[in-house]
């Protein structure tokens, strides 16, 4: 009975993992990069690389705003920080409705001079971020449903995988790359899964929570009589009451330097001031609101703390306290906040990134294991499927090539397109995305045309070359290359180049192993297993 249960869990694990595995691999890979989406966007806008913040940046930005938008109802100024070298400003024209985000005007300012910069049009890291939960080119609602179902399958695969594995602690540190392919792929898959298991559970469950009101709207519909807007309003998803109307009398804005100095002192351990919001600038009832660069709360972003000043006298004003969150909502917000990691400083962000890589490896190695296991079951160790192979196994293997090796290649192609397409090209952002999908489609078409091992090696080499040469491309096309970014201690740009180089080397390492047939391991004849059997190992 017990073995029957475990076998059915093993069956569930391999099929829930396989059928949505290719989509999940894409979600994990692009979602992992999305932890650095701001950094990716900065890299993809070389026009910002010369912007160097100094002590006068905030004042300069405020001054520039009074020229750019003297009559606006509100200015929002996001100051440069560890994740962005330039100043991002937006303003709401006097005649726009308070909650109409589309009416906002935006600009990017040079932090050193205050000049308006014209960065090239790109979706940047945002494309990868959006793709990881909304895919592309299909109605948003449908795409979210597809990703939501895949996320549910992920949760099923994790839980059934834990039950199937059963010797989690005993095999915790086990990785035997020198053993036969079946064994070492199993070890790799299990290690990537178990070592980052808390992350995998958190990211999958909180991913479902983020889709909660879409996947399971019934509780809200019942309690609010079908009026979801009322629920969102009451639960604080849309806070920000409309700002007061501008006073008729004009009055000059108070100098911001003393306010910033006070806030920077107060938030010394929070990265200082992150953003300013000036409401009714140049009017008698102007206010200036400051927020810290880093949040110390996971669940509510930086909303918990802000400083409010009278915009004319510069006197501090009382900030209305945030409403306490009910326990259930606080729990949900905490988990969703962990998923988004907006609170994370650089160290935490790297931990999330590494865990995300482990998740990507887990899904990828699981997909590969599915094929390797079936090949070994066919009687002899035919790692590369050179003999006759059932159509289903062949299909899964070629999809594995086109996704596991092909998607990194497509991501690299996206970065190349960013630099090689002319900066002034119309619909530029769309063309970059077009190149991404063309490269991916090429990989998916290339895979079935080649023998398995050649297909793997060729696509891995292509991805390795594209990634490893990104720093060279940066050197040729932008000022923020390693020769400048490293001496200047600019880790934002150097981090991208060095990570790309590392990814390139890793892909090259994998490609070399495939080329030398190292993944086949020792030619130990594999035992013939009945279909769906739980793989046991001699201790």
């Amino acid at each position, binding site marked *: 009975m017990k073995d029957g249960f475990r076998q059915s869990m093993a069956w569930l694990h391999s099929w829930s993992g396989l059928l949505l595995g290719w989509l999940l691999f894409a979600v994990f890979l692009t979602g992992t990069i999305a932890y650095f989406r701001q950094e990716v966007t900065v890299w993809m806008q070389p026009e910002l690389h010369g912007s160097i913040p100094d002590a006068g940046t905030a004042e300069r930005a405020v001054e520039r705003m009074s020229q750019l938008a003297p009559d606006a109802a509100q200015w929002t100024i996001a100051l440069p920080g560890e994740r962005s070298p330039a100043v991002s400003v937006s303003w709401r024209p006097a005649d726009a409705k308070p909650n109409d985000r589309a009416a906002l005007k935006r600009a990017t300012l040079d932090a050193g001079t205050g000049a308006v910069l014209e960065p090239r049009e790109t979706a940047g890291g945002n494309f990868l971020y959006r793709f990881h939960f909304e895919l592309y080119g299909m109605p948003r609602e449908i795409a979210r449903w597809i990703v939501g179902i895949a996320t549910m399958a992920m949760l099923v695969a994790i839980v059934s995988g834990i039950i199937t594995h059963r010797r989690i602690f005993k095999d915790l*540190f*086990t990785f035997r790359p020198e053993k036969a392919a079946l064994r070492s792929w199993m070890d790799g898959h299990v290690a990537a899964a178990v070592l*980052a298991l808390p992350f995998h559970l958190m990211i999958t469950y909180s991913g479902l929570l983020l889709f909660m009101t879409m996947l399971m709207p019934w509780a809200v519909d019942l309690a609010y009589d079908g009026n979801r807007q009322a629920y969102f309003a009451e639960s604080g998803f849309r806070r920000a009451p409309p700002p007061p109307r501008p006073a008729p009398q004009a009055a000059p804005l108070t100098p911001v330097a003393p306010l910033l100095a006070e806030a920077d002192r107060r938030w010394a351990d929070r990265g200082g001031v992150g953003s300013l919001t000036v409401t009714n600038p140049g009017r008698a009832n102007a206010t200036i609101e400051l927020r810290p660069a880093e949040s*110390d709360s*996971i669940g509510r972003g930086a909303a918990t703390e802000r400083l409010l000043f009278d915009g004319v006298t510069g006197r501090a004003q009382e900030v209305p306290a945030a409403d306490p969150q009910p326990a259930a909502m606080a729990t949900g917000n905490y988990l969703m906040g962990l998923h988004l990691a907006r609170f994370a400083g650089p*160290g935490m962000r790297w*931990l999330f990134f590494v*865990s995300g890589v482990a998740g990507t490896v887990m899904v990828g190695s699981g997909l590969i294991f599915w094929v390797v296991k079936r090949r070994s079951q066919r009687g002899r160790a035919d790692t590369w499927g050179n003999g006759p192979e059932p159509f289903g196994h062949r299909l899964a293997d070629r999809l594995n090539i086109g996704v596991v090796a092909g998607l990194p290649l497509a991501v690299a192609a996206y970065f190349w397109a960013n630099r090689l397409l002319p900066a002034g090209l119309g619909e530029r952002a769309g063309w970059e995305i077009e190149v991404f999908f063309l490269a991916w489609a090429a990989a998916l078409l290339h895979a079935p045309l080649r023998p398995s091992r050649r297909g793997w090696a060729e696509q891995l080499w292509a991805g390795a070359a594209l990634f490893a040469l990104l720093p060279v491309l940066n050197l040729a096309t932008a000022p923020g290359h390693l020769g400048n970014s490293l001496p200047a201690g600019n880790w934002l740009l150097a981090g991208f180049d060095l990570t790309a180089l590392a990814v390139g080397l890793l892909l090259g390492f994998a490609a070399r192993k495939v080329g030398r047939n190292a993944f086949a391991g020792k030619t130990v004849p594999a035992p013939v297993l009945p279909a769906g059997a739980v793989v046991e190992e001699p201790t």
Partner: protein
Amino acid sequence: MILSSLCVAYAGLLALALAMDRHHEQVFARRPSARTSRLLGWAGWLGLTLSLPPTVTAWGWAIGIPAWLGLLTVAAAALVLLLPHAPRAALRLGPAALLCAPFPALLG
């Protein structure tokens, strides 16, 4: 603080691994006695426990616990990759990490 925690976590995980026959053999080419194994096990759990406080003092419980789990993942990944390829290096890294742990300022 973060790197202190990472160092102690690595040393703890290494002790836990050495408490197991398979990994003890990988490093020392022999099995541990029951007593050694038990002592290493206790040392390992102690290391894991001691690696938690630095993250919690640095970040509070809400962020400290996820950060700690993330650090354990990184430390364990390093160990799992080192053990089959360079078992002696995996061993030597343990005391080195413990020596560095009290000096987070040196580690950056």
